[in-house]
């Protein structure tokens, strides 16, 4: 037998990746480019409504990026991601409420004041959502299949009813946010987030970051283990890696991304209510991920564009717009198994 390793220095490495300007690359760049350029154009034409619509699409896409990490990359069909979206929203809302009132959120065992600093709010939203997902995931991930779906739903509903019945923060009426939160920049300058375009650009940056992190992570050792956990967890265990902690960490990261999207959403609307926590929203996020293409990096974005557009424009025409959503979903599931992105950009190459 020849010593194969000495034949070529790079024999063990993966063949070079495909060129960035193939069909998939072009579709992705077009999608992202349009999402960035159209709102900018709308802003300078004075159509603030469309800038806010683009922010809404961007934020929902980001929430779906989080869910896609769980469903698409990790094979964990969570039907409770509204819990993280809503918790992120309530972090923003409650924090602004106390900053407005100049009262502390809690005084014991240590004092936690409210804050109108976006960085603080985002960090708190991600941390709290991560912690909540750690608890929910640690329990839910002991089950699989339909039981996993049901148990994640059950946890999310518990939080929904809790928010509904807590009068301090508005209960079922929700909690308005009276102040605009600010983003601290260099030299003590504050970036005013109440400008629609500024806020859109903040959201857009967040979305691109979330996608970049997901992409990079899925190429790493952790991503390799998570992919194997999804495809064949017996193989992973036999190779010496326990699937459970891998899944749990992915679930926590997924929730943190969705939670950050929730905080952005609350500030966009200036309002947070239990609707953000309801199972309808969990379902919508799932529909978006499936529409766009499960386990595809740009799937959540394509799905969110399609979903929010249909909701906005068809919803303006008829209150029965979900009938058309159903037809589109049917078409995607039957004829474009890999979602809109699979249809536009071709099948994903597996390495």
């Amino acid at each position: 037998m020849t010593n194969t390793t000495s034949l070529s220095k790079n024999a063990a490495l993966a063949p070079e990746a495909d060129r960035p300007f193939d069909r998939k690359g072009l579709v992705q760049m077009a999608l992202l480019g349009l999402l960035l350029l159209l709102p900018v154009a709308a802003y300078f034409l004075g159509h603030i409504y469309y800038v806010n619509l683009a922010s809404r699409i961007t934020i929902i896409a980001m929430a779906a990026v989080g869910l896609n990490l769980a469903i698409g990359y990790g094979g964990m069909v969570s039907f409770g991601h509204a819990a993280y979206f809503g918790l992120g929203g309530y972090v923003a809302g409650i924090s602004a409420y106390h900053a407005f009132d100049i009262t502390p959120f809690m005084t014991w065992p240590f004092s936690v004041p409210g804050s109108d600093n976006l960085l603080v709010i985002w960090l708190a939203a991600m941390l709290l959502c991560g912690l909540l997902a750690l608890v929910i995931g640690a329990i839910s991930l002991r089950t699989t299949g339909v039981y996993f779906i049901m148990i994640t739903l059950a946890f999310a509903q518990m939080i929904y009813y809790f928010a509904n019945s807590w009068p301090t923060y508005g209960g079922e009426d929700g909690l308005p946010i009276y102040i605009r939160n600010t983003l601290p920049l260099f030299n003590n300058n504050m970036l005013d987030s109440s400008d629609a375009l500024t806020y859109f650009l903040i959201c857009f940056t967040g979305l691109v970051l979330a996608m970049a992190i997901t992409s990079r992570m899925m190429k790493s050792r952790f991503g390799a283990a998570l992919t194997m956990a999804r495809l064949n967890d017996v193989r992973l265990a036999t190779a010496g890696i326990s699937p459970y902690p891998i899944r749990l960490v992915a679930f926590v990261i997924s929730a943190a991304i969705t939670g950050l999207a929730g905080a952005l959403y609350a500030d966009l609307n200036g309002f947070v209510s239990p609707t953000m926590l309801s199972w309808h929203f969990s379902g919508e996020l799932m529909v978006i991920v499936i529409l766009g293409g499960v386990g595809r990096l740009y799937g959540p974005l394509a799905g969110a564009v399609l979903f929010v557009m249909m909701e906005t424009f068809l919803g303006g025409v008829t209150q029965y717009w979900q009938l058309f959503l159903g037809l589109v979903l049917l078409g995607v599931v039957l004829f474009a198994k890999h979602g809109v992105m699979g249809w536009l950009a071709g099948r994903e190459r597996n390495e």
Partner: protein
Amino acid sequence: MSDVVLSLQNLHKRFGALQATNDVSLDLRPGEIHALIGPNGAGKSTLIGQIAGNIRPDEGSVYLAGSEITSMSIAQRARLGLGRSFQVSSLAEPLSVMRNVMMGVQALQSHSFRFWKPVARDRQLLEPAYEALARMQLSHRAWTPVFELSHGERRQVEVACALALKPRALLLDEPMAGLGPEGSAKLTELLEALKLEVPILLIEHDMEAVFRLADRISVLVSGSVIAHGDSHTIRQDPRVREAYLGDSDA
């Protein structure tokens, strides 16, 4: 005891009224292939499960290189050096061969919570996997998706996955299953070359391969080891002929 790599001591496993494993003791020594044979329903799968870690024995213990592994998880056993292959191919089919084989290397090198460096250009990870693949003469298929491989090649990849763990012992569950005579001959040759480095506990239906490869054979019937010895002894043993080989055979 020190020259025993894998040792099962008085294993018992009961499923309701069924005694699936009844006081089984076996060992595996360096440099040998120890074959475990038995008719269908003899309790081979249950026994493998207890060695690999997906079934807990009711009584008895399992040792790997002197440490007790009886209550360890599948992944812990693998990291300690127990490589196994499955009766039914269990590779992740959409992924390339390398992505399957490298998981074992990854498990040995550190924890998997490394989020940044891409694996596709990671020499430290890929080169040991490539070597394991070369040992099974499959390095030319390294970046081929598993679903494009022939059945025989998949069996070789299974063994390569186990080799990536730098195992102290290999547990091969019917590696010849479904192979034609040619594929079977090839794998037999590869395993023979391997055994000096890693002892192999071989569960196999292909009697020709067993008699050719095995240094020792244990025969499992109804959960108990009824005979034990080299291939000559086993061929002559009247209980084995009655229970398993059938009188017309051999």
